[in-house]
């Protein structure tokens, strides 16, 4: 396992935790959240939920992790198609870039 894969696993776990907070599902729903889980179809997340998620992500990983800007580059269809894995990649990429700079 490479370092990146390992850290992606950690990021996924932390994102999963944040999503459960957003969905107020702590300890209730054991539904697996994976990289393939879709924000729209599986989690039925709505815009307002993303606002909370953005805050949680920035709190955890710093202001460089900016969900608002990440989403800004996507059109509506892309946002609907968004999966948890896309966010993991974005966070990992941002953290890597930060570490490199």
């Amino acid at each position, binding site marked *: 396992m490479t370092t990146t894969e390992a850290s992606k696993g950690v990021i996924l776990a932390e994102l999963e935790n944040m999503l459960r907070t957003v969905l107020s599902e702590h300890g*209730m*729903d054991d539904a697996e959240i994976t990289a393939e889980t879709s924000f729209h179809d599986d989690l039925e997340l709505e815009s*307002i939920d993303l*606002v909370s998620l*953005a805050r949680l992500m920035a709190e955890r990983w710093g202001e460089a992790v*900016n969900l608002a800007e990440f989403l*800004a580059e996507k059109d509506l269809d892309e946002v609907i198609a968004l999966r948890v894995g896309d966010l993991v990649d974005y966070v990992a990429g941002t953290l890597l870039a930060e570490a490199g700079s």
Partner: protein
Amino acid sequence: MTGIAIVGMSVLLPGAPDLQSYWRNLVNGVDSITDVPANRWDPAYYHPDGIYCRRGGFVDDHATADPARFGIMPSSVAGAEPDQLIAVRVAAAAVADAGGDRRLPARDRIGVILGRGGYLTPGLVRLDQRVRTAEQLVRTLDELVPGLGEAELARVRAAFTNQLGPARPESAIGLVPNLAASRVANRLDLHGPAYTVDAACASSLIAVDHAVRELATGRCDAVLAGGVHHCHDVTFWSVFAQLRALSPSQRSRPFHRDADGILIGEGTGIVVLKRLADAERDGDRVYAVIRGTGVSSDGRGASLSSPDPGGQALAIRQAWRAAGLDPAAGDSIGLLEAHGTATPAGDRAELATLADVFGSAPTTEPAVIGSVKSMIGHTMPAAGIASLVKAALAVHHGVLLPTLHCDAPHPALAATRFRPITESVPWSGGVRRAGVNAFGFGGINAHVVLEQAPSAKPAPAAVSVAEPVRVLRFAARAPEDLANVLAADDSELLAGEAVAGGGRCRLGIVDPTPKRLALARKAVAKGVPWRGRGNVWFSPSPLLADGGGLAFVFPGLEADFAPRIDDVVDHFGLPRPGAGGDDLCRHAAGVLGVGRLLDSALREMGITPDTVAGHSVGEWTAMITSGLLVSEAVDEELTAFDPEAFQVPGVEFATLGCGVDTVREAITDRPDLLVSHDNSPHQTVVCGPPDGVAELVTAFRKRNVISQVLPFRSGFHTPMFRPYLDPFLDLASRLVIGRPTVPVWSATMAAPYPTDSAAVRELYVRHLLEPVRFRTLVEQMYRAGVRAFVQVGPGQLGSVIDDTLREAEHLTVAANSAHRGGVDQLRLAATALWVEGAEPDFARVETATGPVRLDLGAPLVRIGTRLRTAPGATTGSQSTVDGLADLDTLAADSPIAAELAALLRETEETATLLISRAAALPCRLSTTLHVSTAAMPYLLDHCFAPQRDGWHDEVDRRPVVPATTLLRFMADAAEKAAPGRRAVAVCDVRLLRWLTGAPATDVSVDVVPEGPDQVRVTVGEHCAAVVELAVDYPAPPATPLAVDTAGETMPAVTAREFYDKRIMFHGPAFQCVTELTAVGVRHVRGVITVNETPGALLDNVGQLLGYWMHATQTTGRMAFPVRIGRVDFYGPEPAPGTDVRCLVRIVSVTETDFEADAQLVVDGVVLADIACWRDRRFAVHPDTEPAYRFPEHNGLATRQEGGWFAVFEHWPDLASRELYLNKYLSSAERIGYEQLPPHERRGWLLGRIAVKDAVRNLLWDNGSGAVFPAEIFVRDEDGGEVSVVGHHGFRLPEMAVSVAHSHELGVSIARFGRAPVAITIKHTPADVDRGHQFAVVHNPPDLPARQYIVAWTDGPASWDQEESE
């Protein structure tokens, strides 16, 4: 002929409980043929040389009814022909499908004509068994065994007839055949002609032909037509077996080359017919139009079993002539739903007819021939309607449907223009037209020509039908009861009933999976509300049932608008709204149309709002659906509105994921940018020129605020729209303002709309220019009591409501969603609302499974065990031994007699043993229990509300039948149903609803055998238990339970004081505790002296438990039994006067329940063991106990300085409220209470209690003795004030009273004389009127923190002062 429209349809057919499932089965080619269920005819009849076929179409799985819904007594169901109840159910469903009652024309213009044969239906068979077979049985026995004697024969007859259930002479009327139609007319209150017709298998289409004529001549404006056939009697099968008409291969293969006979089916189908012109005028959904009907007979042309093509052709030609069409024309027909019985002679004749009438050469595509008999069998008199409904659905949906099992078609098909198909295909091409055949035994022929409706939708590009999403709904009294239900295996729950239980604690699961069940279990176990995530809804204290309001909230324009409404339009037969579109006008019209459609659909489902609101243009939808804007006028305006004349400023909107304050701060120096919507704490919309908006969005995104420019421009809700206002000002002046049915909220004002029409118009304009204050609106609605918000449209509006109300308990649910089909989402919304206490009409969106399963069979009677003669039972002059001698003589010639003789001899030899085992299996037994204080005088010693001696309204005493008396009745009923045996255990006693003895009432006690030694007994809806039976009581345990006497203390009261202090409320008939022996930490002991009152012995066990609670608990000491796990009896109840030692051991104590075990011992021998006796604790505040025990001397309200009285609502739930309500209200006042809307009852009751206590205290202060609350009658006067008079002869001096209530507080003041007094509750001291005194009152610590300003007028407070004046 006049076109006749089919505007509604429903069926109950094999595999299809309703129209939707029938359609799915037809499209998917589902084979619904099964083996005959054993209760329809006995498997013993099946024989290769007799009835050689045992497969067919059966509806048993779906044959349920809801008799109560139609005002039919559930007890009369067993005696009626089941097909009548099925006809009523299917007719009601067809009417609902046609848009419901309100769409029907005048009742005297509606007929009912049903095809039905005169066959041996189950009700008749049961009558025959009782009347003829029972007699035949004993007469034959008597002839064979002359010495049996009257008593023995009577036993045989009784053993036989007992199995038939109770005789119900009053139900014989239910067996008259025409009632299938008459009951429909009767129960649906239709006054046109209602009758049945019999033309064998052509019956249904003959009924349709009659209906067409009734409509064409104008005598009726609507007719329910169809057919009913539910006869699988073995005689019926036998006829077809003898004719060799049943398929030896046991397959229904119409038009297969090797088709070898029919399979018998059953079913009911009913269509609602109207003249096409009327249907179009009324905006009805038209499935298909009947263009022509034809009827003929074969005359001499045919023998009884071989049909005549000539006669058939006559009927078909007649129908097409009536339609004015040439059947042989190339494009005349696309689908021929044939009679297609799959008998060789029948198929051959029909194919010859078709070749003759429609010609042979397919000029274009061959037309499709089908026979639904390949899927459901031959439904006989209902065959025509099954075919007609199928063809109408095919025409309506534009789908050609498959026929099963026709892999090698009949050679004669080649000579016709028809071919069967194996899979559904779109029905493309010109006008969709179908023919339907039904040919009856004996040569009666009928044909119907159907054509697509003038406004029919085009054929679909591809055929698909979706299974409806499954929904489970559970209800129980409390979360722990729900937890018990959910404790079952996943597989059991998933396969079980979709709706189970009753009670206010509810759970709904949409599209249930093991994962969702696990989630539900967790939520229920925690007892916390769960509202929608994971498709689970659970509410331990339902918001709507507790008085919360329901709001419809209509969305406005959103970035994404993808409504899913096609199936909604289709399902409810509602008009299709415009398609929407990219430009602003069409987008808005689409949003409005979808909102109105969903509003109608929700109302069809019985979901109506208490108030409405909308977001942005959704506010217009709210105004229209509530009637604030008159919708017809709006429609005219919308049609007339010229989109070209309508222009908007070139400004853009952007949604920002933060609160309005943050946005305002960011735009203080940007006058070009304005807040247009304050949606929620985390969503604000700004409006302004595109560049400025884009800049702001970029800046906010940099700050990690999710922001989005919206894909439409309007400038609405900002002053930037002012220059473009003219068309709207014009529109506003022409809008017709009506009276809304419910309050409409304005998001401009965050308050309800005014009623004055000028003010409405003004606000309508302001709405276009001022910001949408949606966040404040939602907060205010919540403050006004709204607890459930239905988002009436697709989109994300609900999520901003959730964001605003994050911490406050509420429900939001969307009536439409991109995630689910339209009808499925409506069911989901209905489920969510049901969980909160709403009662949606689920029958509109799911198959109505009635609570009563109909028994369609009349199986052979089985006694269960051999009935053997017991010498003691013989009372005739001859002993059985004498009879045996006669039998021996007979036996010389008769082998049967020899066998009987041998049997009887064996009996004789083992007579002693047999006496003890002679009892027959338990039988079904229904009896009526008359409950009244006259029949059960002891109930007057079991009253919840004491009253003055001689009080003449017994209802006010609330005499309740004790749980243990019910237990005794259930055990007695079980013994009656199993003569010779005793009830040795009563298990799983569930006490569901109080049974009161005043007013007198009759309840049915039903015993249903569950096994050879076990019956289930129910007493109305009040209680249920399982009773175990045996010839003898089992041996008691060797030694009684030991007691640890170490920690015991002496009870603080004697047994006498126990009653005198009303620690127990029981009167003498239930006062059997004669010694309170000792009380321990977890147990109590006492002596109960048996008396004659039924159930008193066990009731006193409960009283001992009650004493333990009283002695050891400080709160929640009031408790009543809800469940008794098991009572084992080791002997009969001892004679009155016997002392029984009783030990009660407490098993568990929770906040809500006590559970205990107990043992009864007489002279060292165990008499009974009681396990898992559960009492539900009522939340009775200790301060209120004196008023509870001695209401004639104590009030709930307490005296306040200044001489007024205050009562705090110390009863947090309905059940405990009921306890006080019983004590305080007379029956007349109780009626007043029940007429109030639920949310007003709390306050009203608080006020009543306050007044009664203020008055009673005034009396007590002045030397009065006992005054019961019911003796003070409180009347409402104008202006919210009340007056008091003495009730039922109680003499009350003249008094002035005043009352007020707010939240948990009720206050009242009472003074002698006529001078008015006043008391009010104000918000602030500043509101207090001049001349009034006031005091600040706080809720006590156990209630929500709240402060009240109570203001009152001073006045004389004593009798003396009054008299001195």
